[in-house]
């Protein structure tokens, strides 16, 4: 099954999991499954009108999905999807 890697700042909203195997045909489907399973994660990944937030990047293996087919990018069994949010460091 395709694997999704949860970044450190978001693990607290995903049952403290580092990675999850999820059955999906596209990146969008996989992320939808993820936020269905972990409701708290939704507002961190999506805006209120359901768009992926612009400070959260999603990669299929090492490629940014913005330069593939965005959320309709197909995923294969062996693929790794990474969520990479911006982190600034010390201060809020």
């Amino acid at each position, binding site marked *: 099954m395709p694997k999704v890697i949860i970044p*450190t700042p978001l693990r607290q909203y995903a049952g403290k999991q580092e990675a999850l195997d999820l059955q999906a045909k596209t990146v969008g489907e996989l992320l939808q499954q993820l936020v269905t399973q972990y409701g708290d994660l939704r507002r961190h990944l999506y805006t209120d009108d359901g768009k992926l937030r612009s400070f959260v990047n999603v990669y299929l293996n*090492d490629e940014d999905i913005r330069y593939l087919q965005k959320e309709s990018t197909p995923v294969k069994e062996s693929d790794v999807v990474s969520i990479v949010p911006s982190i600034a460091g010390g201060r809020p």
Partner: protein
Amino acid sequence: MSKGSAVKNHEAAAPPALSPQEILRYSRHLIMPEVGMEGQLKLKAAKVLLIGTGGLGAPLGLYLAAAGVGRLGLVDFDVVDFTNLQRQVTFGTKDVGRPKLEAARERLRDLNPEIQIDLHETKLTSENALDILRPYDIVADGTDNFPTRYLVNDACVLLGKPNVYGSIFRFEGQATVFALADGPCYRCLYPEPPPPGLVPSCAEGGVLGVLPGIVGSIQANETIKLILGAGETLKGRLLVFDALKMRFRELKLRKNPDCPACGTKPTLTKLIDYYEFCGIRGEEAQPAVAVPEIEPKELKRKLDAGEDVFILDVREPHEYQICHINGYLLPLGDLAKRAHELDSARTIVAHCRSGKRSAEAVDFLRKAGFRKVWNLKGGILAWSDQVDPSVPKY
């Protein structure tokens, strides 16, 4: 030469050279073909600006000074405090209370008296950034907040200076090189910052002390390679590092043709208000939600008077082990599914470390129908300051 022709006055008349002391000091570089005399002279001629002298700035400053980077600029306005010492290895216990720049200069001078160290004791702002950055060849970003990240990026793009980027959270780090002529910038990676309060900060989330050591060392390494023109830099690659798993991953970074800063038709032609851009009003971070608050002294008075007050501690169990004020531990993340454990008829005072998470808890409980619930203003930190100093601060 004909009259009126522009004769440029070149700065360095004598060819640069290393003194015998410098030759001895840099011996292990000089005997390496990848650096050699030519490379060491490049390092000596190089001018690097470090934004921030904290966790990332520590290895950056130490290694670049040791390597013989001829001119190091440091930008910071902070004072060393005890919580810095766990990771900001430039400073010692004796430096607590001193300005970071003063302490850093002393340490770097001791490490390498051959180099020039410039101090810029100021907050980097849209007004001063271009002037501060202009004299330097390379900028290394070791800041700790989003507004300064975007400011540094935009200033580097406008001035055409490479931005050696590093960023950390808990045990995860990112590093790359932005703003090289043909490479992406920070805005290509993240066009917009997260709204305040959505991403936890290190002050709330913590950071493994050695992590900035590793990421800052990677930044120092990239800086040195840029100066030498040797090897391959991280341009176009985002290095993502997980210290817990000891795993490095590389993600492709592309230059966004529509990037407002470095795209084909840039719309960003001068520096902007980065606090406004990041949605932050004023310098102090406001609590994410406004909720009814109670002062620590007022809570103490109620408790002393024997009033019925239920203290709800919404921190994590590992924080409870550091210190507590006999509250009922129910971490914020579990509140929704465990709210039934609370009695809405009783007066509830929620607290966390600083009052931010408990404000969210109070907001949640009020929306869930709890009427008598208050946030302890300033959290356990304020309790320690104003009521009971025997409660340790962290």
